[in-house]
């Protein structure tokens, strides 16, 4: 492997990692608030891809992007209202099973409505522009993905740490009963969290699918799983952790494929999960779980 090839691989890895990070943040936010692993998150990401295809077909692209973001956000809130909020006081396991149910529902609904034939993802003007620097050849979207990801994370950290809504979110995540006694509107805060998670999934979906040009009903499942691992790796519940986890998984995966071990690239991701759970179950930035009596 020469230097140019190394740079090319690094670029690929960082770009994939950026997309993973955006999805992983969705897992982390929801887990932080509800202690729920939202297994449907990867499929929301996939449906966002279909939203883009259909809105792009009838609308000019800036509006199509906005429509996609709005629809995906509404989908996330809707799923929370229908499948999770009635189970607010049920055991955590029931909510998790409900989440798995939603995941399969979305996949099969997509297969039923759009067939398993991969649908072409629209080309957003400018994003697919090919850029060549020396021997390195890449597209504009590959370059901007990590930048957008980092900007979003900075904004998100500001939102969570400095605003009133963020304070409410943090309060709910600590102890939602106490928070609601203090006058925080529980349902509103949870909906808001799902809205942000889904919005990020939509942004991630636009960046991810622009680079991969097709959407099919199962295109959300593997990225979803990998990003879940990324979130656990970084410490589920922690936003910087999810960012780091996403980049880590993306870069490692690319390196493994680059050295000719594609066979193990997926296996590696899940080995990371197991090893992390064995040596540091709370992840890199996870909070220590202190059981209050």
């Amino acid at each position, binding site marked *: 492997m020469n230097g140019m*090839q190394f740079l090319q691989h690094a670029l690929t*890895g960082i770009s994939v990692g950026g997309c993973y990070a955006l999805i992983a943040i969705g897992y982390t936010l929801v887990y932080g608030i509800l202690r729920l692993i939202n297994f449907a998150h990867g499929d929301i990401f996939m449906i966002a891809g279909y939203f883009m295809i259909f809105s792009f077909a009838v609308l000019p692209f800036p509006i199509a992007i906005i429509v996609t973001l709005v629809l995906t956000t509404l989908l996330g809130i809707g799923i929370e209202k229908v499948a999770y909020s009635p189970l607010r006081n049920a055991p955590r396991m029931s909510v998790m099973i409900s989440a798995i149910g939603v995941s399969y529902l979305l996949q*099969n609904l997509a297969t039923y409505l759009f067939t398993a034939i991969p649908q*072409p993802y629209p080309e957003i003007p400018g994003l*697919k522009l090919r850029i060549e620097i020396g021997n390195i050849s890449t597209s504009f979207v590959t370059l901007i993905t990590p930048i957008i990801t980092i900007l979003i994370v900075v904004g998100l950290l500001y939102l969570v740490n400095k605003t009133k809504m963020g304070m409410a979110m943090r309060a709910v995540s600590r102890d939602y009963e106490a928070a609601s006694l203090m006058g925080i509107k529980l349902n509103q805060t949870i909906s808001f969290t799902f809205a942000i998670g889904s919005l990020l999934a939509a942004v991630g979906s636009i960046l991810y699918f622009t680079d991969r*040009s097709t959407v099919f009903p199962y295109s959300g499942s593997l*990225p979803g799983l990998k990003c879940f691992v990324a979130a656990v790796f970084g410490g589920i519940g922690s936003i910087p952790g999810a960012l780091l986890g996403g980049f880590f998984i993306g870069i490692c995966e690319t390196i493994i494929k680059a050295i000719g071990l*594609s*066979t193990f*690239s997926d296996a590696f991701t899940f080995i990371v999960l197991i090893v992390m759970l064995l040596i540091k179950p709370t992840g890199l930035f996870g909070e220590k779980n202190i059981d209050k009596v």
Partner: protein
Amino acid sequence: MKKFLSLVLTLVMALSLVACGGSGSAGKATSGEKVIRIGVFEPQTGENGGGGIQEVYGIRYANKIYNTIKIGGEDYKVELYEVDNKSDKTEAVNAAQKLIAGKVSAILGSYGSGVSIAAGEYFKEAKIPAIGCSCTNPQVTNGNEYYFRTCLLDPFQGTVMSSYCKNHGYSKVAVITQLGDDYSEGLGGFFVKACEKNGIEVVAQEKFQTNEQDFKAILTNIKGKEPQFIFAPSSIATAPLILSQARELGITCQIGGGDTWENGTIIENAHGAAEGMVVTTFYEANPATATGEEAVFLKGNGNGETATGFSDYLVNVEKQPKDIPAVSALGYDAYLAAYKAIEAAQSTDGEAIRDALTKLTFTGVTGDISFNSDGDANKNAAYVKEVTDNKFVFKEIVKID
């Protein structure tokens, strides 16, 4: 009350099961006419769902044209019994058992060799002949006297592609295959073997996982080896990704695939990156010179939904684009083979139909079809098509010795 209700519900369910079991094949249908069932073992969902359903279209169309059969002087209605094997080897076994329980007389399918191999043993045990449409791996029919097929074989396609490279003077080639996929590894393996024989150097052999969406890492490695041709037999979901990511990385050489790649969705999904790619294929529609069965397939038989040919049937009945996928033609031929064999056997019994298949010779849409001792169709040439101006254009016929 609740107990009573659940008891009633249980009874209802049990009764409905009994009712299901009652409606076996080769018996009397409700309208009083006799029915013979042909099973359709195809993926309609999952990884290969897109291609599988295209085969089903061809089969359904053939069923509409040849819908009754005379056995022993009595008219039998031919009924299709479709099951979905979900592109999954475990699901394939369930689907196969469903077909056997449904008492079908013959089975058509499947798209994807892996599921056919998984189900083959069950068909053999139940003594029901199966006719594959586009499953090209040798293991499908090897050692299974109940499996036949109407298409070329993997080794053949890989060898054809290698001959194509030789004819065009390529001396350095690369191969990309999908791990654990019998079709992809089959074609790739035979391509490599044939290249060694033809004196073509294989500079890179890369593999990827099922459902992989990022090929940049392996493509970057391939780019460094500077091949003149990349052979990447894989699914239609994978093709546009490999093509567009290769072009994005600045790989300019020709890229080729197997028969699965001959699919309009790839051109559409690759956004222009498919230009110049080549595929081997089983069938080339040419309405101008079509005669016999091909004319029926392309121009219809003047009746109802099949009046004006398969292309119109796709648009009007199945709500699909009008381009004819090669696998639909193979599906049609597989149905026809089953139909003719039943006619020749004059029986609904699996063993009799199998014996008839071994002796069968007929002209289908994709040419003359007879089966050799392995159950494979006798063919020795393949069509190579190239994408020009976003269309598959017939390029040349490649023959092998």
